[in-house]
């Protein structure tokens, strides 16, 4: 099974020249990564639905918000995956980042007289040499920008994990939070009645009666908008209750989610079977081959046009002091 083709574009022919064991190893690596990626997207969709339910109290809008969050996660996590998938093969990396050097090798060859088949053959020969050289080259040097880019990636991934963690934690402790909110509502309705003229400030300067009234208004269900998931209209109140009740355990849960989100990216960076693996090398070679072939085809056309222009008589005529027009005789 090749799950990697859906996310990473893995073609089975890339591994056709490998032994069965190495081929299977590459499939396992990318299948695992794809599965982890799908799980992260699934979790983000789920968290999005939870947030939607807490904010809108409507399944339709909740599913819509889940899809929105999942799509955002899909693209941004995929971008981070691809930015992390960098080959360690110095030859491929140098060719890929400085293609002018490859093109120079063909500048002096007589490509204008070659047919398409001959050009493809020339490219195939060059690519075969490149593939052979790539196997014998040293690994790419370390660059200081690695720290900068990695820090940004880690911050983005941790931020994403934090958003998902809060959504899923609310799902896990949904019944407990609802129980607490119900108890809170009962307490607020039964505790010493507040005199309308009483103004007692708390530490933040707000009057207690205002806080009490606001809290009660968030907890009393409205007929026009019944509670669906959490029995409160305030997402901040929900998280206040969750945070107060979980205490330091919340950090543990957040840590687990952080691990789940970070590990796929750590694997991509640290497992050398990715950075030195056949997939990245072959994907790079295929792109170099395509670029080179189309460069040669376009150059052939350019040279042919140059040759034609040499035999076509023409002269420049000055029409006015600003414009110059080419006119065929």
């Amino acid at each position: 099974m090749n799950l990697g083709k859906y996310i990473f574009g893995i073609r089975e022919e890339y591994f056709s020249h490998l032994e069965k064991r190495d081929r299977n190893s590459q499939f396992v690596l990318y299948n695992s990564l794809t599965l982890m990626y799908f799980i992260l997207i699934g979790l983000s969709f789920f968290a999005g639905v939870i947030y939607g339910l807490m904010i809108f109290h409507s399944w339709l809008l909740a599913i819509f918000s889940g899809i929105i969050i999942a799509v955002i996660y899909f693209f941004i996590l995929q971008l981070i995956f691809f930015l992390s998938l960098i080959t360690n093969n110095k030859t491929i990396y140098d060719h890929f980042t400085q293609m002018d050097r490859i093109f120079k090798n063909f500048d002096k060859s007589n490509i204008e007289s070659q047919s398409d088949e001959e050009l493809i053959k020339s490219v195939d020969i060059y690519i075969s040499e490149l593939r052979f050289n790539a196997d014998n080259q040293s690994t790419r040097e370390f660059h200081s920008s690695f720290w900068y880019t990695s820090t940004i990636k880690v911050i983005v991934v941790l931020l994403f994990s934090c958003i998902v963690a809060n959504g899923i934690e609310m799902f896990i402790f949904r019944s407990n939070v609802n129980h607490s909110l119900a108890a809170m509502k009962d307490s607020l309705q039964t505790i010493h009645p507040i005199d309308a003229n009483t103004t007692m400030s708390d530490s933040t300067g707000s009057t207690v009666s205002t806080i009490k009234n606001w809290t009660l208004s968030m907890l009393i269900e409205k007929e026009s908008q019944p509670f669906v998931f959490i029995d409160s209209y305030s997402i901040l109140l929900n998280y206040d209750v969750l945070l107060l009740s979980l205490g330091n355990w919340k950090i543990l849960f957040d840590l687990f989610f952080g691990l789940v989100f970070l590990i796929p990216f750590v694997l991509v960076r640290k497992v050398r079977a990715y950075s030195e693996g056949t997939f990245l090398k072959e994907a790079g070679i295929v792109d170099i081959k395509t670029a080179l072939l189309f460069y040669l085809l376009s150059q052939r056309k350019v040279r042919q046009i140059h040759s034609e222009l040499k035999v076509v008589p023409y002269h420049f005529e000055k029409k006015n002091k600003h414009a110059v027009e080419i006119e065929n005789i």
Partner: protein
Amino acid sequence: MRSKSKIFNVGSLVFWVSLGLILFFSLPFFKDGFYDDQSYKKYIATLDLSKQEEQKDEVSKNDSADFKTLRWSWTDYGGNSHNILFTSKLSSLRKAVKYRSSYSAFFNSYSDICADFINVSMPVIDSMAAAMQSNMSIMNITGAKQLEYVVTAVQQPTYTKIAVDNECPCIDMGRKWLNDCNARKDGKGCCNNVRPIGLFTPAEFIFQKTGDCDTKALLAYALLKKMNFDVALITGDTELGPHAMLAVANIRPKVYSQFVSKHGIKYYPWEVTSKSPDNILGNITMWKTWQNWTVVLN
């Protein structure tokens, strides 16, 4: 190859185990163990006014034992004696001492520290400022005379050397200092371990009447700011080392004076370290060297 697969295996294992643990902890039997509903009950209690009234009564009973009456006596340059009595909470002093001793100066500038020390001392400063204003009203002291009234009050306690670490007793600035943190009449008082930067909070100075140049200048600044004077705390170098002074804007000194500018406003220095006929607004002839002076707080 084995090491390559080892990182992958361990990483994958951590991923799946973390995911499994999240699912495992979400089972009803376990998740109740993480959820403690006592904390939010405290929150509800804060909304119960009847309990708050009871707590308020309890606090007021304890408060009477917490107050201390403070007396400040001094004479101004005209020889007039002044005497103020005011009360302030001992808990405010304790709070200020605790705040200063646990303050981290690493991430904060000198001006931030001064501002924070004033903020934490505000209840005590308020009490003293109110007593002074009441007294000035009775004595009919108005305008620029109020400046002299406040400054002479701060100048009155004898200078005490303040050390960040355990330096006292020692010889410094050509003088001998004893290990005695009181404002001694012989001017040999020295306080050890005044962390983080050798500066008392205004609350500590008001209660203990012991401090050095910046402690005194800071209290003078805080009191005069409270009375809506355009004043500043300035720091710079003298022949004896770094020094701090009070500075006043919008009032022209009677003597020729240097000044420190900020945002186009000229601040004239005033030496508040000790009481002396020379230590009047603008006079800096007591210093041979007077350079690098800047406004720290205004």
